[in-house]
């Protein structure tokens, strides 16, 4: 499972060492596509954030993913993501890559991060939108396209239906800065 992050830290005086923390509900979802419009969507509300002052580390426990069909969940976790061996997806983004919009501002853009999934680490590019309505709270939505073959994940196929390796990932969360 891939995380995508869309949070941008701007000028040095804004990108201080104040720690970022998640607040409220979070939503991480991925969309896989197959033949003739076939689509499967997996979601989780579990997302954690660690801020060490240099970079932000987002983590999703892959066992929390749910596609709505138990058999498909089991296949996804046991056969393809192998969550017993690789329980998490981790995205690390350097704070220097990020900007925080000022109060009342909305920022959109791209950022780079390092995604670790299924034991492989690759650079990914995220598109994001950050909206800061309140003083310290920023709403973030982000999208990233990931090819799971880049992470050594086998192509899912079941009874003639094959999921294409390009996956769309969407993330939404709220973040505060102390």
């Amino acid at each position: 499972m891939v995380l995508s992050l869309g949070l941008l830290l701007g000028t040095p005086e804004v990108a201080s060492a104040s720690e970022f923390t998640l607040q409220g509900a979070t939503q991480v979802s991925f969309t896989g596509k197959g033949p003739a419009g076939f689509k499967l969507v997996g979601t989780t509300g579990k997302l954690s954030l660690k801020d060490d002052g240099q970079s932000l580390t987002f983590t999703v426990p892959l066992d929390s993913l749910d596609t709505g069909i138990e058999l498909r969940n089991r296949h996804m976790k046991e056969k393809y993501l192998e969550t017993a061996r690789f329980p998490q997806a981790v995205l690390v983004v350097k704070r220097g890559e990020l900007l925080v919009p000022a109060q009342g501002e909305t920022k959109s853009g791209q950022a780079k991060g390092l995604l670790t999934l299924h034991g492989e680490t690759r650079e990914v590019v995220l598109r994001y939108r950050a909206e800061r309505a309140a003083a310290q709270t920023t709403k973030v939505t982000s999208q990233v396209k990931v090819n799971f073959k880049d992470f050594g994940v086998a192509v899912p196929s079941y009874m003639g239906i094959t999921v294409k390796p390009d996956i769309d990932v969407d993330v939404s969360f709220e973040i505060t800065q102390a």
Partner: protein
Amino acid sequence: MSVRVLTWTLALCLLVHPRAALAFPWMIKHNYTGCQSCHVDPSGGGVMTDYGRAQQQTLLETQWGAHNPEGEADSNTQFLYGALGSSRPEWFLPEVSVRAGGLFTRSVNLGAASDEGQVRDVMVPVVMAADVRAAVVVGAFRAMASLGVAPRRAFAASLTPVGDIDGPKLVSRDYWLGAALLEDALFIRAGRLTVPFGIRSVEHTLWARAVTRTDFNDTQQHGVAVAYAAESFRTEVMAIAGNFQVGPDGFRERGASGYLEYAFAPNLTAGVSSLVTFARFDRLNLEANTLRQAHGLFARYAPSPDLALIAELDALVRGSQQGGTQAGVVGYAQADLEVVRGLHLLGTVEFLREDQRGATGMQLGGWLGLSWFAARGLEVRLDGFARQTPVQGQPSISNLGSVLLLHFYL
């Protein structure tokens, strides 16, 4: 048409309208907005793919015992409970569908001339469908055909000359050749096809299906259809050449039909349909030079994994030499609640306004149903229904009834 004939027509139209295929729009509960992954027909219903058969085990049936620990589909999800084993080529997808049971209807017509005619009860055994179907899937090539026996009616699908509409006959409801291109996104077919319009479901006696003549029973037409399925929408349009299993040629409707359905979310779709046909003589309304149109909207929504809400609303326009131009409307709304895996409770309300055949004003109907996928290849279906038809100058005619069916799909 006299009121007495109307009464019997309304009652008998509920008899022996076979439901020849499995088609479940409520699969949107499981985020299946399209049908092509489970069915060879790109718009749904009919022969199932191997994936579709596997979904019977995963999503359809009551779970009685331990699952296959590997999670793969049991071999007995295949044709005749896997009787052919590995000897069945992967490209050959056969099916048998038998649906039979009993039907009771009570027709109440307080405007009938005699006391005896005011309440009529009918209880009959019914064989709704007894069909064999098969599809061939080889690379991009697709083919499908069905053959069955209809003890009564379904004469528009008859392969043999029909002397008695209510007599037994050999039927073939659909057959076609086709090609699936662009990674199965584009599907081109030619043959006798279920007309693409509205929501395709097993409830073929719903007014929305019967009046638009877009059901699974015998309203299939010969023609060419093109279907396209993308990530967010699916569509099919058909050029209708007529039903060449009825004659003479003047009875054959020609025109076009199609739908477009858009998936706003994995659990929410909405669509539009349109149908226009012309026949020199309409075999059902017995009117000359009939231009028949239906244009409508439909939607499917699953607020939870256990509940699906389905609705359709169509405007009807019919012009003929005898009747001039008449407008009407038909629609229905249905809720499907899966109480436990495999056990569905259905509630349906429907309406029809079509000022013809003696009926005037708005006809209303309600259905309560229980559909139980009790075991592999077996559905038990129990429905209770009530329909009211207003008649000019007389009390409305009411039709009440229930039908119990066992459906074996192997």
